């Protein structure tokens, strides 16, 4: 798979179809990967693909596009099925044009949780050489367990998994994607408040959640405004709660559940749960799921003349 990826990217660069390609390369620790920007054909060997390609690289599309120069203004991006959803979101919201990007879709059987690495940090245990399939289910990221897009819905090039050639498309296991949300919904208002209070209290206001998010592209974030200052910039329960709730509201109907915010959060606040809850509300109210159709209007950016609510008319 890596070889074919490198060949295709090399070809794109050679034929000047793209100015650069955003992909994954090995990180210095020899286990993780890290985002990389490939501009020359002789650099393609840096590109890798494995179960540590957790990053949603579409986050870099807006800023990279500004750097790309003509006559090859296109940007290539290595994207998993979930990442493609946010590319669709960026197209829907006029942040990029479909013909400005070359989507190099990757067939993906799921990415591994950093749990292994985290244990390594917590207990000082050495990461054992991973037996590829041993307890794979246990290592999968939570979001991957309910994945329905092992093969991206939209792509320009598709790199298929060699192990699956000829075999049927990998099936998603029967996992309820909303299980964690439903568990919280089952609790009383007071219990939920206590739960989130404890989680938000840890927030250090590093804004990694916002910075890593492909759809947090506001030129000026409400959290950075000082006149008036809507959200207290210091970490306190009040400011932390406002920040995390405002962000979730702004992503309602837009969040594609790539889970990058939760992964990036150094304090391990379960941000996916709050975004997922709003995603669920949007689905129930508007029968809409983000990141599936670049032509669709996001429900909170649209109105209908026959809307039953008075205030919107």
């Amino acid at each position, binding site marked *: 798979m890596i070889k074919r990826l490198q060949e295709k990217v090399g070809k794109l660069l050679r034929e000047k179809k793209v100015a650069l390609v955003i992909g994954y390369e090995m990180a210095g620790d020899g286990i993780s990967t890290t985002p*990389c920007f490939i501009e020359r054909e002789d650099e393609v060997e840096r590109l890798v693909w494995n179960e540590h390609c957790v990053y949603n690289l579409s986050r870099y599309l807006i800023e990279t596009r500004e750097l790309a120069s003509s006559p090859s203004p296109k940007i290539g991006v290595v994207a998993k099925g979930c990442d493609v959803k946010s590319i669709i979101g960026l197209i829907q919201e006029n942040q990029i044009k479909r013909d400005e990007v070359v989507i190099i879709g990757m067939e993906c059987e799921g990415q591994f949780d950093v749990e292994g690495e985290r244990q390594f940090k*917590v*207990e000082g245990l050495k990461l054992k050489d991973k037996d590829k399939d041993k307890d794979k289910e246990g290592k999968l990221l939570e979001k991957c367990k309910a994945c329905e897009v092992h093969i991206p819905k939209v792509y320009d090039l598709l790199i298929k998994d060699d192990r699956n050639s000829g075999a049927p498309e990998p099936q998603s296991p029967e996992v309820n994607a909303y299980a964690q949300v439903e568990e919280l919904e089952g609790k009383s208002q007071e219990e939920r408040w206590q739960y989130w209070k404890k989680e938000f209290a840890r927030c*250090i*206001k590093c*804004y*990694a959640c916002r910075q890593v998010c492909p759809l947090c592209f506001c030129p000026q974030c409400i959290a950075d405004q000082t006149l008036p200052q809507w959200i*207290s910039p210091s*970490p306190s329960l009040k400011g932390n709660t406002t920040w995390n709730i405002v962000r979730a509201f702004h992503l309602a109907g837009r969040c594609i559940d790539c889970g990058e915010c939760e992964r*990036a959060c150094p304090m391990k606040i379960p941000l996916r749960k709050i975004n997922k809850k709003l995603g669920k509300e949007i689905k129930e109210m508007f029968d809409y799921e983000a990141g599936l159709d670049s032509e669709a209007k996001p429900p909170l950016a649209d109105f209908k003349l026959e809307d039953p609510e008075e205030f919107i008319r």
Partner: protein
Amino acid sequence: MTEKIVSKEDLKKILEGLMKTSELLAPGKEGDLVLFKPVKNPEEVFFAYPNSLKPVKEFFFPPREELFKHEIREGKVGLSSEHQENRKRVIWGVRPCDAKSLLMFDKMFDGEYKDSYYLEKRAKSVLVGLACNEPLDSCFCLSLNAGPHAKEGLDVLITDLGDDSYLVEGITAKGEELFQGCGKESGEGERTRKKELEEAAKKKIRKTCQPPPDLESFFEDPYWEKVSRKCISCGVCTYLCPTCFCFDLSYEGRDCIRFWDSCSFSPFTKMTSGENPRREKKTRYRQRVYHKFSYFKKNFGEIACVGCGRCLRECPVKVDIVEIVNQCSKDKTKD
């Protein structure tokens, strides 16, 4: 300087005693995280951790601190400051790298300007170090004049010798005081064991940071654009860094609040006029590197990095400042 051997039971008794007489902070687990927190039960004190997620700087330079309040009394405006708790504070289980970082904070907050908020906390605190026997792959303290068993900045250093016995080395009088009347004298065998552990720990540190002696001529190099490209401009590296001390001030009602700020953030240098000298990401990333490896060195005589490796471990996109700094010196010698 005294040395003695104490058992795990002795340590628990000491912790129990300290809980009663002082404010005791030590590493404990919170879910998957290791954080320093007030000790409620000595059993919860965690010993087997490479390092805490957050450095101990937060106890001297809190993420959010009320400096003073405005008051209007009988038509007159006045200022008041909340009384600080002056009870003795013991921070238990500080790793040598983090202890060293506080000496750098001293240069900043106890130098030309005396920061009373910081100094009060510094004066009432005793730092109990825990030597590092299992450094991580991301640790690089050895190349920065520190080490897994270094004593600099600590009041007392404990080394886990295995078999539930610990070597306690007093460094300052207030450190020695905590262990008065407990344990037994250390023997030759125990001292040898400690040396072996120290050497073994040093051997485990393979990452080295070799910044060029002078970064100045490299300032305008396109290198910075290249290496900062994947940085997402969040505050993880700066907020979890034991030597980053930048802050901002803001009013919340009548309270003047000091809180952490980060050079990674675009508004960090934004001025009232709207002008922002560090609008571009590369200028912000370069600032972080230069502050640590050039400006601090010029101002205070040493590099503002202790090699704890937190920025490497916690960066959401694995930006590796050591690689970046080392590589830049290589690029330079090539020219």
